[in-house]
């Protein structure tokens, strides 16, 4: 693909895979934005924008159905949060909805209460907090639907490749496990045993794990036979230095990112940590990458659409992070006193900007071919009619 075609935007572009890294930057940007607010309107908008982009740009592949799975997991998270509040809540707030019978607890557990009054304020707060987690999950789900884990792997630097493979194998493990559980449940039914309840679950754990292990061994054999892990000659000292730097870099980056997101650590500590970590990591990768002899088949280019998609995710993240420092009240979903959630204009606009990704990204291959048939056919028919 020439540079020029790679730069083409949107529906008019030749269908191609967008660089998976761009989708992940976009999705993580949205997730960062979600982590900074409890405003239900902003959160709902993030979920909506992510859903809209997924519906427009997801490929026709098994992994692309993961968005709805993540949404459902998000609902479960909210439900669990609410359930905990109902049972363990302290009953702070004026509007008591219902009073549950309180279970007396021994004295040393003072401060914890089971049952008691359930207030609207507390309930609403727990819904908002649950919604934050659910929204972040939805963002991860969107990234999963739009970019397959394996494609992301293809763009991982050579030095991290082998770690990356382990991660991807682990990620494909989960859906296969679901399939295995279904198979074992079927077998229980065929044997005339109950296929529901706790006993059925316990009885199916061993066969499922056995199957998963066997598959992992098969996969390892196949990868070994196909040249996975062939290495070039490199001096041991260079190799060790590379590994050490890499490890240092990963730790530094993780701590830096955590400090930055946490908000409690001053930026003067977090930022240098992050920068140092990244630098060490990059140097380590360069050194460790010398061992790898892997080449890459049709690497996804990083062109204009990739820049725009990443940008459309970074904008909401930066806006909300900055606002959470400057004007934190706007981003809080008010629960005490109970009010209707307000409309924070700037965050809403920033999040809406993320929808740009759905417009500028080229369509993935495969899906477009089907849709392209319609206009072409129409033209043909028009010609015949004329």
């Amino acid at each position: 693909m020439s540079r020029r075609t790679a730069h083409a935007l949107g529906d008019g572009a030749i269908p191609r895979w967008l660089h998976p890294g761009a989708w992940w930057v976009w999705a993580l940007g949205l997730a960062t934005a979600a982590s900074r607010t409890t405003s239900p309107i902003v959160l709902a908008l993030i979920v909506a924008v992510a859903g809209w982009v997924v519906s427009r740009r997801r490929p026709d592949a098994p992994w692309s159905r993961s968005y709805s799975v993540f949404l459902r997991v998000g609902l479960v998270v909210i439900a669990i949060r609410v359930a905990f509040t109902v049972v363990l809540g302290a009953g702070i707030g004026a509007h008591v909805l219902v009073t549950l019978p309180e279970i007396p607890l021994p004295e040393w557990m003072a401060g914890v209460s089971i049952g008691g009054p359930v207030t609207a304020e507390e309930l609403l707060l727990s819904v908002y907090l649950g919604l934050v987690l659910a929204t972040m999950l939805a963002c991860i789900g969107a990234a999963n639907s739009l970019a397959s884990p394996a494609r992301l792997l293809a763009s991982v630097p050579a030095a991290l490749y082998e770690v990356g493979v382990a991660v991807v194998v682990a990620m494909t493990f989960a859906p296969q496990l679901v399939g295995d559980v279904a198979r074992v449940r079927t077998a229980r039914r065929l044997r005339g045993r109950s296929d529901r309840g706790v006993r059925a679950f316990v009885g199916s754990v061993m066969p499922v794990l056995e199957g998963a292990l066997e598959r992992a061994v098969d996969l390892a054999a196949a990868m070994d036979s196909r040249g996975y892990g062939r290495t070039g000659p490199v001096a041991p000292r260079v190799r060790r230095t590379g590994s050490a730097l890499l490890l240092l870099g990963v730790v530094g980056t993780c701590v830096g990112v955590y400090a930055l997101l946490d908000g409690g650590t001053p930026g003067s500590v977090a930022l240098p940590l992050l920068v140092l970590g990244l630098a060490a990591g990059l140097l380590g990768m360069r050194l460790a990458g010398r061992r790898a002899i892997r080449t890459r088949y049709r690497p996804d280019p990083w062109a204009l659409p990739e820049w725009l998609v990443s940008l459309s995710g970074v904008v909401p993240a930066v806006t909300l992070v900055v606002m959470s420092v400057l004007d934190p009240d706007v981003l809080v979903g008010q629960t005490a006193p109970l009010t209707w959630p307000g409309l924070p204009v700037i965050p809403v606009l920033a999040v809406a900007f993320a929808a740009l990704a759905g417009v500028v990204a080229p369509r993935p291959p495969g899906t477009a071919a089907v849709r392209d048939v319609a206009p072409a056919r129409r033209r043909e028919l028009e010609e015949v009619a004329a």
Partner: protein
Amino acid sequence: MIRFEDVSVTYDGAVAPVLSHVDLHVPEGELVLVVGRTGTGKSTLLRCVNGLVPHFTGGTLSGRVTVAGRDTRWHPPRELADVVGIVPQDPLSGFVTDMVEDELAYGMESIGLAPDVMRRRVEETLDLLGLADLRHRPLLSLSGGQRQRVAIGAVLTTHPKVLVLDEPTSALDPGAAEEVLAALQRLVHDLGVTVLLAEHRLERVVQYADRVVVVPGDGAPLVVGSPADVMVSAPVAPPVVELGRLAGWSPLPLTVRDARRAAGPLRERLAPLVDEAARRSRSTLHVVDGDPALSTSDLVVRHGSVPALRGVTLTADRGEIVAVMGRNGAGKSTLLSTLIGLHVPHSGSAAVGGAVPATLRGRELVRRVGLVPQEPTDLLVADRVGEECASSDRDCGVAAGTTRAMLDRLAPGIDDGTHPRDLSEGQRLALALSVVLAARPPVLLLDEPTRGLDYSAKQRLVTTLRELAATGHCVLLATHDVELAAEVATRVVVLADGEVVADGPATDVVVGSPMFAPQVSKVLSPQPWLTVSEVAAALVAAS
């Protein structure tokens, strides 16, 4: 190209070696077929070629294996990836990526080929194996035959000199198997690839082989020879060869075409016997007492929004053996699972013994209908055969020892302490069958029962099924194995795209069908003979 010199392999903890003192030389450009019963060490032999044995599996290998001059002692599998391509039995288990095109490129990426070389070879391979339309498809969405071709393509892109395949057609319908074998044929002829191939379904592959290696097992020496020579004395042979032996043809034909050319006199001898034989054979007892054993009417089953069955109407009585055939994905397995209540019909109805299967639970279910799934191991839960039998007795609520007695009838001599995984495929099937039969269900469903079975195990299965039918069971089996269907079925139902396209006595349905006709029928058509034993019986009766 491949040289085994005095090779013995002993796995850790095993008492006896799997292979002992094997000497074998495969020259460049040959297609060598490896045959032998299950568990005799065929897979071990194949996996020695690229060093998976012993580098990956562990165990001790003595002697020397060299491939293209490289000794597997010093070269682990990854260092042999550019000379040996190995395709595992289940292609899905060996896929590393998730799209067709990426999978084809994976091996080349690993050995570090230049991007333009990779691009060119992927295109060449897509054309060579007829995969161009599938390049952007996810691997999980492919049919069995397509998967197998992608798996072959994925190892071909590194231009290996040797291709090793473990039962490449055992899970495929006859059409898909033809596709795969045609592709292999092309590789051998056009590119001079050396192919080492293990397969139970001799009738499919023996005509393509340059040489046959018999692995007898138990440490006996290998038998190596041209297909015709080996087939003359082989204990197992495809029907066309057995027919040739019966008729005394020399040279022994290996293909249907050769056999047809030799079969003129035999057809003349058989012509007057056709009517007589037709009357005598295939007369089965139908036990028609009220309800049919199983019935479906206008059955529609969907997987999500995809219809798997579109209005299937079918009945079967006790004493019948019905073979359900059709290509991969035609709805065979769905029909079977609906009959045991794993799927709820979208519309229409399914009934076994007058009850709706989806509403039955536990013992109610297993006393009416039993299913042996494609992978019999799925059904087995215990660590030992003895425990398995005992737990089956409890599940079914029958007297202790019932399952064990059934197992002793189907496959005598299995020790109680054996782990089900250590049994041969045939024994494992027998165990699963005993578990299902312990509750004495009048309806027995079998999904692809001969996958991985050798001829002798298949013969035992045929005997068992006939006995079951004779004692009033209704047997419904989904199968790709035309020879099995010809041997055992009283009726054949062909499914295509979720609909019944043919339903009738085996002879009527399979004779003249290019896809579902057994070899004997192809050789002797238009006369309606299906199996060698039928022909033999007719000849004996006439003389």
